[in-house]
C-alpha cells in the first residue's frame, strides 16, 4: 500500500471519529433541550461565544438554542480538577473510561452511512466494508461492559461496585436476545444464491423496497429494547440509577474521566441508532418503496444519502431521549426477568417463525 493511501485512510478514520464525538456532544445538548421541552422548561439558552454570539439574528438564535452549550460543557469538564481517590486501583481506574469509549468509536468503522453511485455502480460510504459487519459490531460493542465493570471494580467503593455488577449482568443478558433478534434480517437479506454474508451494506440495499421494520416489526422491537439495555438508558439504566446508586459506576469519577463516560453513553446511543437505522429503517433509502438509486450520481447524491441516514439517526436519538424522560426505571431483578423469560423466548420464537416463513418462500 502506498503512503498516500495510508494517509487517506487515516484521514477518513479521523474524520469519522471526530464526527461521532461532535455528534455525541450535540446529543448531550439535544438531551438537555428535549428534556426541558418535555418538562415545560426552557433549557440552556444563555451560553454564548463573544464574537459569534453577537451576530445579529443568527448569533442570538444560536444562543437561544443553546448551540454553544456543548463547548462550555466540554471545557468545564476539561478544566476541572481531576481527583483520583486514594483507595482506587489506579490502572483500572484510568483504563475504564477509555474502555467505555473505545467500542463506540470502533464500531462506527463498519457502519455504512451513505452510498455513492459512480458509473452505475453503487458503492457504500463506510470506513471498512467488512463481510462480517454485524458480527464485528457485536463483538466489539460487547466489550463496552468492561468500561463499567472496571469502573465499578477499580473505584473500590460500594455504590460504583453495585452499579458495575448490575450493568455487567444486564448487558450480558440482553446480548443474547439482541443477537437472536437480528438473525431473521440476515436470513432475509441472504436469499439463496446471494453471497452477502453479514455485511451491513447488503442489508441496507436489500431494503430498497420494504424496510425491515415493516417486514419484521417483532425483530425491530426486540432489537430496540436490547439497544436500550445495551446503552444503559432509562428504563434500563441500572448502572447509573441515580436515585438509588447516587451515580452508579461513575460515582468516584470527576473531570474529563467522567466526561469520557458521559460522551461514551451518547456515542453508544448514536452508534446503536445507526445500526438500527441500517438494519430496520432502510438506511439511506428515503422512504419505504422509494430506493436511494434515484439520487443523482456522484458527490451530490452521496451527500443526500448521508443526510437521509443522519436524519433517521437523529429521529432515533430523539426517541431515546423521549423514552428516558417519560418512563420510570425497572428494578434490577425485573430487568433480568424481562431479559431471560420474555425477551429471549420471544427472540427465539421470532427467529423460528421467520425461518419457517423463509423456508416456504424459498422452498
Amino acid at each position, binding site marked *: 500500500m502506498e503512503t498516500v493511501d495510508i494517509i487517506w485512510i487515516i484521514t477518513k478514520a479521523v474524520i469519522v471519529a471526530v464526527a461521532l464525538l461532535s455528534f455525541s456532544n450535540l446529543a448531550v445538548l439535544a438531551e438537555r433541550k428535549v428534556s426541558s421541552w418535555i*418538562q415545560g422548561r426552557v433549557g440552556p439558552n444563555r451560553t454564548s461565544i463573544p464574537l459569534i454570539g453577537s451576530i445579529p439574528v443568527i448569533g442570538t438564535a444560536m444562543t437561544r438554542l443553546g448551540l454553544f452549550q456543548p463547548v462550555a460543557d466540554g471545557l468545564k469538564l476539561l478544566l476541572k480538577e481531576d481527583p483520583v481517590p486514594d483507595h482506587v486501583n489506579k490502572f483500572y481506574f484510568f483504563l475504564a473510561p477509555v474502555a467505555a469509549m473505545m467500542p463506540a468509536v470502533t464500531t462506527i468503522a463498519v457502519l455504512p452511512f451513505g452510498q455513492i453511485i459512480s458509473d452505475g455502480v453503487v458503492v457504500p460510504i463506510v470506513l471498512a466494508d467488512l463481510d462480517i459487519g454485524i458480527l464485528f459490531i457485536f463483538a466489539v460493542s460487547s466489550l463496552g461492559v468492561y468500561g463499567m465493570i472496571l469502573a465499578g471494580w477499580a473505584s473500590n467503593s460500594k455504590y460504583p461496585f*453495585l452499579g458495575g455488577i448490575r450493568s455487567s449482568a444486564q448487558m450480558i443478558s440482553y446480548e443474547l436476545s439482541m443477537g437472536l433478534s437480528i438473525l431473521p434480517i440476515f436470513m432475509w437479506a441472504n436469499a439463496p444464491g446471494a453471497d452477502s454474508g453479514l455485511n451491513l451494506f447488503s442489508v441496507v440495499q436489500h431494503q430498497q423496497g420494504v424496510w425491515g421494520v415493516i417486514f419484521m416489526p417483532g425483530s425491530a422491537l426486540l432489537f430496540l429494547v436490547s439497544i436500550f439495555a445495551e446503552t444503559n438508558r432509562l428504563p434500563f439504566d441500572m448502572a447509573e440509577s441515580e*436515585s438509588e446508586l447516587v451515580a452508579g459506576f461513575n460515582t468516584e469519577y470527576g473531570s474529563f474521566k467522567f466526561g469520557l463516560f458521559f460522551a461514551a453513553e451518547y456515542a453508544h446511543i448514536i452508534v446503536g441508532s445507526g445500526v438500527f437505522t441500517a438494519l430496520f429503517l432502510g438506511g439511506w433509502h428515503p422512504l419505504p418503496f422509494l430506493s436511494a438509486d434515484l439520487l443523482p450520481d456522484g458527490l451530490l447524491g452521496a451527500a443526500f444519502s448521508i443526510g437521509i441516514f443522519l436524519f433517521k439517526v437523529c429521529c432515533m436519538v430523539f426517541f431515546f431521549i423521549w423514552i428516558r424522560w417519560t418512563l*420510570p426505571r425497572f428494578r*434490577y431483578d425485573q430487568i433480568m426477568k424481562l431479559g431471560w423469560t420474555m425477551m429471549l423466548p420471544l427472540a427465539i420464537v421470532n427467529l423460528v417463525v421467520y425461518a419457517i416463513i423463509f423456508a416456504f418462500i424459498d422452498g
Partner: protein
Amino acid sequence: MATKELSMGDVVSRSAEYEQEMDTEKMTLNMGPSHPSTHGVLRLVLELDGEVVTKCDPELGYLHRGDEKIAENMTYNQFVPYTDRLDYLSPLANNVAFALAVEKLAGLEVPARCQAIRVLICEMARISAHLLGLGAYAMDTGALTVFMYTFTEREKLYTLFEKLTGARLTTSFTRVGGVARDLPEAWLEEVLHFIAQFLPVVDEVDALLTRNRIFVDRTKDVGVISGEDAISYGLTGPNLRASGVPLDLRKDRPYSGYEQYDFDVPIGTVGDCYDRYLIRMEEIRQSARIIQQVVETIPEGLYYAEDAKKIFPPSKEKVMSSMEELIQSFMITTQGPQMPAGEVYFEAENPKGALGFFIHSKGGGVPYRLKIRGPSFCNLSILPKVCVGAMLSDVVAILGSLDFVMGECDR
C-alpha cells in the same frame, strides 16, 4: 411470569443454602445522610445480601434543632415561625395546628371566617405537600418528568401563598386567636382559577403513572404494611389509610369546622407503595373539592377572635386611639398571649399525618413544656420492619411512598 427461581424474596432460606455452599459475607451500605433519595438527611445503615436488604437501621437527628426546648423560651406567637420549619412542605398546616392547640388550651373559639380561612390554607398546604411528595416519589422510581409537572403546579400555589402571607415557604400565617391578616382582594377567585386549571394536570400525572406498567411493577406489593402493623407502629395520615385503616382526624374529630364540608377519605386495601400513591392522588382531588366548597361558602366577619382580650392584640386604629387597647397590645406583644394553667394535647390531620402538640402551661404567655408529635417520625419507625427482604431499589420506592420530611422528624 411464574418464575419462582428468579424471585429474590426468600432471603432466609436462600442465605442458609448459600452458607453451606460457600463463604458469603454481607455488605453494609451507608445510605445517606446525603443521598439523592433520602429526602433530606435521613441515614439508613443497610445490611445487604446481594441486593436484598437483610437489616435496615435508620439513624435520625441530623436536623435536630431542639425546637421543643426553644419553645419554652418564647411566647406562643413567637413560636409560630418555628412551626413553619417542622414539615417545611406544608408550613400553613403546621401554623394552623399549633394555633388550634393553643386555642384549645385557652378554650377559645375563633369566628367562622377565620375557621374557613384556616381550612382553606390547610387544604392548599395539603395539595402542595402531596404534589411534592408524588413528584419526588415518581423521581425516586425514575420518572423524572412527573416531578417537574407537579413542581410547576406547586409553584403556582406558592405564588398564592406569597400573596396571602408575604412569604413563600416560611408563611407564619396564624396567630393565637386568629390569622395574621384577612384575605387579599380577589385572592379567592385566583384560588378557584388555580383549582380549575390544576385538576387536568393531576389527570395528566395520573395518566403518566397510575397504569404505567413499570411504575406498577416497581410499587405493587412492595413495602406492604398491614393494618395491624400500621396501628402498632403509630402510622398516621395517608400511610395509615393506605393500609386500610379509616382514620382521618378531619372526619373523626372535626376541628376548625371541617364537619361542614363534604369530602371522601380514600382508604387503601393492600398497604403497599402503590396504594400509598393512589391515596395521595385521591387526597389531592378531595382537597380541591374542599377548597371549592370553602370558597363558595366563606362567611363574612372578622378573621380573629375579638372577644379574646388578652390573647389577640386589638386592631391598629384602636391601639392608636384608646389607652386601654394600647396597654393590651403592649402586654400581648411583650409578654405573649395570656393562657390559663393546664395541660392540653391537640392533633390535626396534616399532609403527612397527625401533627400533635402537647402544651403544659403554668399560666402566662410562655409554655412551660411543649412537645411535638411529628408524623414523619412515627411513619419512619416502621422502616426496619418493612425494608427487610426488599431490594435496594425497593428501599428507595418505600422511602418515596412514606413521604416523610426530616424537618418534623428531627425537630
